[in-house]
């Protein structure tokens, strides 16, 4: 079972439906205890960083996320759910992130419209990463050019764990990976067939993720 964490934020139905479309046994989960037994975990998120961080903590999901990531359970953070994995965000400087990925979430450059609300092309940074033999990566078999849908005004810093970027007033982190821990700044559940292919990779990386 793949637990889509439901902590009262935004449109979660799309993530659930898209995972189901590619064969995933996805379920919206409101109870951290139930999510603890999941084979894979998806953390969506839209809105402000601080609101999401507080909502996550209020429902006890912050501890759950640290626990499942620590145990190597396949994990996918989407949009603000991706940003929450970093140390903090310039959007709400007083609010801590989970600090699982190194780095902070920064504002998009001045001089471009914010939010970036559009499709953009992924630039892979695969050369920077050491793939584990036999393991699946986020962008495996995703056809080029990969156009995906972004809605955001902030993005994590580009670090050695950043696996793809897009160009929007500068180089913007689009995804990061560390083993079975994945995150996307874009919305794979809203990125048509390209996004579904990415989610299919996630489902394939989850033992017991398909019914």
């Amino acid at each position, binding site marked *: 079972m793949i637990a889509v964490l439901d902590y009262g934020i*935004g449109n979660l139905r*799309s993530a659930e439906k898209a995972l189901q479309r590619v064969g995933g046994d996805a379920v919206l989960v409101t109870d951290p205890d139930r999510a603890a037994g999941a084979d894979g975990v998806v953390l969506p998120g839209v809105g402000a960083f601080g609101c999401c961080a507080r909502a996550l903590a209020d429902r006890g999901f912050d501890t759950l996320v640290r626990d499942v990531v620590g145990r190597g359970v396949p994990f996918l953070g989407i949009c603000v759910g991706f940003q929450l994995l970093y140390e903090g965000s310039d959007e709400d400087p007083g609010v801590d992130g989970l600090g699982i990925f190194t780095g902070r979430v920064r504002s998009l450059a001045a001089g471009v*419209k914010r939010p970036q609300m559009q*499709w953009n092309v992924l630039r892979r940074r695969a050369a920077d990463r050491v793939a584990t033999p036999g393991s699946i990566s986020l962008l495996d078999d995703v056809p080029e050019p990969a156009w995906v849908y972004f*809605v955001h005004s902030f993005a994590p810093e580009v670090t050695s764990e950043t696996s793809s970027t897009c160009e929007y007033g500068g180089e913007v982190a689009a995804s990061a990976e560390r083993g079975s821990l994945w995150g996307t700044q874009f919305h794979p559940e809203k990125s048509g067939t390209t996004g579904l292919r990415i989610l299919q990779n996630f489902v394939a990386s989850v033992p017991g993720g398909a019914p």
Partner: protein
Amino acid sequence: MRSIRVIPCLDVDAGRVVKGVQFTDLFDAGDPVELAARYDAQGADELVFLDITASSDHRSTMVEVVSRTADVVFIPFTVGGGVRSVEDARRLLRAGADKVGVNTAAVERPGLVGELAAEFGSQCVVVAIDARRTPATGAPPTWEVFTHGGRTPTGLDVLAWSEQCVEQGAGEILLTSMDRDGTRDGFDLALTRQVSDRCPVPLIASGGVGTLDHLVEGAIEGAADAVLAASIFHLGEFTVAEAKARLTQAGLAVRPA
């Protein structure tokens, strides 16, 4: 990179797609979910559903349309029409909509945009503005905000109102020229350009598209971030793929269909 979105608009009345010409004279053009899936397959970047259902008896019909759409369409879609409160928006977002559009209610209750942004984030909040050029008197044109499907003048200036909406937390502006809507004469480019230049958030241009070159003009001269059209697509005159091919030909970045 800035890419231009092509957005078919589906006007929905009691669960069926219709298209207004100058906001009157409607005709039926099919099931919204089937049409949405067709446009997705053609390469549409987003969809807008405008619920023009007059009777509140049928409000739940739209939630059901949204839910069925979310089952089969995996591109973003916005639902506008009849959203008057945080709870109205929540129903649509929980059913699978990505954004909600507010128009009349945002004018009637100026706190609404801020409430929606605080609750769901600015990226969920599209303010739809119906604009009418004030009668030309030789002076530079100004535009007035109209509500209630274009029937009610508000006395608000479109530029000032759009800035106010962004300050309150609107994440996007959907700007319709009432003068051009249904005419097929092209966007009101001066209007579109002025609002786009003033607002730091993305702008969807709407109203008046009759040819594919109108879409190009909207993106270049109008500085729109997205172009919305209905009848040229609904009547089968052009596909979304043809629209995107024309934009590409004009040197604009678009996601290939």
